[in-house]
């Protein structure tokens, strides 16, 4: 276990450094934000003065080393456009993204898992077909469209939900549904497949032969064994929720990191983009680590030392 963790830690550090380096150079390949910041008609001289003051006329490697040195001191720098410390901006936006992701996960797990299990145990029934339709809708509606539809129906026509922004708990409901729909569909499909696979195993027949009720077989035995694939997709899906939030946050004017990322990329506000990518890398790596640790909890046959 100790060796496993140490190895993973080293791997993670390399992955993060690589990500940070990649994003640093990729962004700069396309130029710098000087031109975007200036009004129309700024003269060549003014452009050069501003570029020099911002430090973008220095060699890339100098800029990179300075950035790495800053990072080593846990300094994320200052936003070029807002002229506010990046850490302040991220700290203000992060809670909104977490709140939205939690809401979406609630929708996804709360609806998706039971739907998937029901579809498996009631295979071939009308209920399965109805649930399958729900899953298909969730999977095929793009969020920029379903989001607008939800707003038009619940905010404009019915007037029972806020159309955008952040006014208390009610504001998170529509964006959470829009964002959670796709993940809900994934959970339902994976849960269905996993449960179906387990249903055909010998131990199910044995348990039934021993006289256990079908409900007990499902809850006590099948679900536990079907958990491994569900944990795997959870790690992926939570990362997806954070990424999918880009569109939902824009549609619902939700002030999370996704919206900030889009705007900062368009404005070439490099320090903010770098910080968001850094944070996302951390989250993805941490989630995968948690998933790996959870495998051994639900399935003692999996030994982490062996895997590492």
């Amino acid at each position, binding site marked *: 276990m100790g060796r496993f963790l140490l190895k993973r830690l080293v791997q993670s550090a390399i992955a993060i450094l690589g990500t940070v380096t990649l994003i640093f150079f990729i962004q700069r390949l396309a130029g710098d934000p000087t031109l975007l910041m200036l009004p*129309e008609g*700024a003269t060549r001289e003014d452009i050069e003065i501003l570029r020099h003051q911002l430090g973008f006329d220095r060699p890339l490697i100098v800029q990179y080393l300075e950035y790495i040195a800053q990072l080593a001191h846990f300094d994320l720098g200052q936003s070029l456009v807002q*002229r506010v410390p990046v850490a302040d901006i991220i700290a203000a936006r992060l809670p909104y993204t977490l709140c939205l992701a939690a809401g979406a996960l609630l929708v996804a797990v709360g609806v998706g898992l039971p739907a998937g299990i029901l579809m498996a145990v009631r295979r071939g029934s009308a209920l399965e077909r109805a649930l399958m339709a729900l899953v298909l809708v969730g999977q095929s509606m793009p969020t920029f469209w379903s989001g607008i539809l939800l707003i038009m129906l619940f*905010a404009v026509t019915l007037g029972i939900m*806020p*159309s955008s*922004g952040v006014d208390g708990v009610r504001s998170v409901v529509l964006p959470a549904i829009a964002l959670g729909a796709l993940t809900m569909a994934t959970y339902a499909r994976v849960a269905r497949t996993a449960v179906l696979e387990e249903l055909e195993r010998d131990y199910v027949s044995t348990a039934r032969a021993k006289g256990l009720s079908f409900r007990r077989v499902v809850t006590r035995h099948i679900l536990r064994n079907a958990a491994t694939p569900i944990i795997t997709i959870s790690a992926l899906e939570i990362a997806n929720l954070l990424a999918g939030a880009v569109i939902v946050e824009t549609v619902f004017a939700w002030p999370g990191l996704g919206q900030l990322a889009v705007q900062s990329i368009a404005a070439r506000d490099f320090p903010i983009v770098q910080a968001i990518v850094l944070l996302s890398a951390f989250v993805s790596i941490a989630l995968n680590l948690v998933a790996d640790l959870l495998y051994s909890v639900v399935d003692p046959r999996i030994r982490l030392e062996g895997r590492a």
Partner: protein
Amino acid sequence: MGKMQRRTRLRLLGLGILGLAATVLAGPANAAKDVLVIDLVQEPSSLDPHVQWNPDSYFVYRNIFDNMLTRDNDGKIVPQVAAAWRQVDDSTTEFTLRGDIKFHDGSALTADDVVFSVKRITDAAFKSPQRDQFNKIVDATAVSPTVVRLKTEGPYPVLLAQLTKLSIVPKAYVTQVGNERFNQAPLGSGPYKFISIQRGVKTTLARNDAYWGDKGLFATAEFHAVPDPATRVADLRSGKADLIVTINADIADELKKDGKVKVLSVLSERVAYFHLNSLAGPTKDLKVRRAIAHAIDRQGIIDGLMHGYDKPATIMLAPVHVGYVEGFKGHAYDPAKAKALLKEAGITPQTPFTLFTAPTFDQRVVQAIQQMLIDVGINATITTSDFAGWLKRAQSSPAEFGEMTFSRWSCGCQDADGVLFPLYHSSSQWAKSNDPAMDKELEAARASLDPAVRLAHYRRVHEIAEATVPLVPLYQVAILYGARKELRWTPTPNESFFINRVGWQD
């Protein structure tokens, strides 16, 4: 029966009390509205009025700060912080300030604050993106607490127009708290005070009841950041927002079907144009440039895509610009003539033309123009980059530029110098033409303080431009806003917004 009556009476009494309460709470009809909500596209990138240049920011901060001068709803330059001004010599202007302006902390606005503001924004080390608009000011001195002299690098006829955009910041407060803190808690002298900013959500301002000028009608104003246009419309229609910005003609038509909202529009000082490369490629030939000018159906674009809101332009200025001259006919839509000119120039369908663009511009217009060019036999291919990439290419050398691009220009100064000099003068990185006669006229117009002399030079500029076609002027851009029916506001051509000019009628 008696019970029923009592119940009815009670109910009526209840209704009466409710009605009374509503009347009392509502007060006079035009003051019923307490909070004005405006949906912008993004949050202001900063509230320090000197460190950015974008509409989402100045929509907000111009209410917190007073500008040196301002424009009234008719576009005329009128006093604000400066009550009067006179020309001392060709390059020196003396401004007499109102003596009665107080910052929101109660301190007086004096000549020192004006000098500080000018020096702050023109200091290269301060990195202000707006520096370019003020860098002709080489010195600022306080003659007395209410008199300031500004010295420019030679005669500078656009000074007053630029000063309508100079926000005056409090020297004492800024030096005491520092730039970073000032950005987060701005303090000015304007009709509204900064209350709070909730990052990514909204900026809240409160009325300055001690304001020296017209006080705002609304006790509170909130500016929300709503990036998706469809969501801004939903906000407006559901009553969450009272005014929304940046909508297109299609959305405007949709809003017109809703009886609770309306569309406000103004022909702005922004002019759309099709820039041609006169220095390289096939467009180097004047015949080809004239052919392109004849191939574009402006009225067709305006009727078909802009639903008639915009107005055809024959020169690169709008009537609200100093330097606008009436009577220019431009190049009429004439595909037959275009084809003939192309034939003369030896252009074949094999000659490649690059039309570069960015998603920032209305792609329907860009594609319509492409089709019009193809219709007369120009093999135009569209290449797209992000806006930053577009900016870089539009200001690149003629060899890298390509043949043409669509754009829209506003200097926010309503003066020909801010439009024609960067687009037509050969020293500018925007210009893709080189005409010594043109340069001479532009320089002469910039060097004179006499409006009649300047207009004469600009008339020549328009004549040369019509003859040499460095670009094709297309249309004066209409800016559209969505508003609640009750809102009273006249949008202005310079895309400004002042809360104390907004009314409400239930």
